[in-house]
């Protein structure tokens, strides 16, 4: 009887242990399975986020490349119906691309929902508080600014742009800055090393003879083209009470622009005020990040 009792007790304990092991396994396996499914959901969210960002970059016509301390903006002017195209793109994404379990929201800097056609046209380069912006996506202008105290963060700036809608209306030797940029000593506050090259559609090339300018003094270059209505105004330094590294106004010209900055550090980053949030409704998992366009980062 005692042996029977012992056997029963041992088997009962064994039974309870097995039940406990089963429950534990079920719990851990279930959470493991949950993690794998969450991994798939995260993958889908990240992929959708990049897919949309890729298209927005293409629509804006701007591409940014970073290689160590060098930052290059490739852009085209003017923008043709970019705001409308962004709006149509958003409509298409909502109507045809997103599945019912996927939700996409565009947010302003205060996290309020906005439409994609309200995408901000200002890019900030931190920690210099430098801005690259247009009045709007019609892109008939370009403003690049940096606070005076941060100017020493830039080693030099090069700017190449080519106009495809006409030849210079005068010989390149006759193109003059009025007023001419004030030369200065590189490395001192407010002094920018600046290389400017402009090409027209006939293969003529204008290279600015001024390789430095003082941001506190205005320099102005007016470029006219054979095409009757195409002209470009370029200012460096102060204009209408503000200081610019570059203030560009474009009238009826097709321009491809490439501007490069070499900073004295590799420790900088770009901020874009509009954010994109992609959420899986079923799992309530989301990714929210700035619409950072696509920044191509090159290795050495």
């Amino acid at each position: 009887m005692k042996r029977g009792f012992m056997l029963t007790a041992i088997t009962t304990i064994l039974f309870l242990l097995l039940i406990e092991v089963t429950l534990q396994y079920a719990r851990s396996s279930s959470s493991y399975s949950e993690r794998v499914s969450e991994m798939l959901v995260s993958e889908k969210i990240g992929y959708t986020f990049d897919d949309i960002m890729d298209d927005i970059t293409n629509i804006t016509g701007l591409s940014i490349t970073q290689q160590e301390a060098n930052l290059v903006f490739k852009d085209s002017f003017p923008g043709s119906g970019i705001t409308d195209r962004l709006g149509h793109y958003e409509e298409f994404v909502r109507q045809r691309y997103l599945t019912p379990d996927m939700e996409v929201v565009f947010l302003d800097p205060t996290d309020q929902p906005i439409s994609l056609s309200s995408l901000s046209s200002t890019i900030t380069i931190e920690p210099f508080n430098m801005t690259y912006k247009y009045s709007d996506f019609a892109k008939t202008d370009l403003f690049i600014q940096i606070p005076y105290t941060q100017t020493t963060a830039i080693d030099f700036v090069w700017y190449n742009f080519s106009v495809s809608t006409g030849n210079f209306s005068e010989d390149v030797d006759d193109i003059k800055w009025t007023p001419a940029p004030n030369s200065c000593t590189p490395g001192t506050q407010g002094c920018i090393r600046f290389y400017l090259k402009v090409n027209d559609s006939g293969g003529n090339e204008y290279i600015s003879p001024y390789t430095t300018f003082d941001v506190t003094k205005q320099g102005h270059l007016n470029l006219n083209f054979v095409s009757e209505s195409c002209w470009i105004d370029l200012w460096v330094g102060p204009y209408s009470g503000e200081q610019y590294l570059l203030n560009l106004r474009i009238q009826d010209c097709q321009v491809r622009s490439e501007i490069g900055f070499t900073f004295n550090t590799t420790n900088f980053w770009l901020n874009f005020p509009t954010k994109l949030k992609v959420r899986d409704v079923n799992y309530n998992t989301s990714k929210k990040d700035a619409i950072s366009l696509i920044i191509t980062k090159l290795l050495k």
Partner: protein
Amino acid sequence: MRRGVVFTLDALVAVVIAATALVVVVQLLSLRTGEWYKEVALYNAGEDFLISRDKDGTLKEIFDKTDAEAVSTLNNLMQFQIPPSMVARINITICSYSGTFSCTRSITAGESGTTETKSVVRRVFTDTEKNRYGVAVMEVWYR
């Protein structure tokens, strides 16, 4: 003594039941986790295909291709890029915008799978300057 035997047998039956439950739970859960893993692998294959075809401009080129040309291009590319252990089918819907979206073309390439587990990957691509928009939906199965 007999009562002891009955108790012991009773307890042994309980252990057998518990062990069976353990085996069943292990089987079911590992089956479920395995399916998720398969789906992740299928999703990655579809994702890689669509990302690379979007980046190299293949998807955008379809706007200007005939349906037959598009099917041939996609079949060739899938043959090289989709792993041999997988099979994929892609459907592309092409729309244009003039006040509203009108989707008049639907192109299907590749072949369907027969296994139960599959992943579906979608990609949007555009040529907004010409008001053309497309969505590629790719389904990937194991052979």
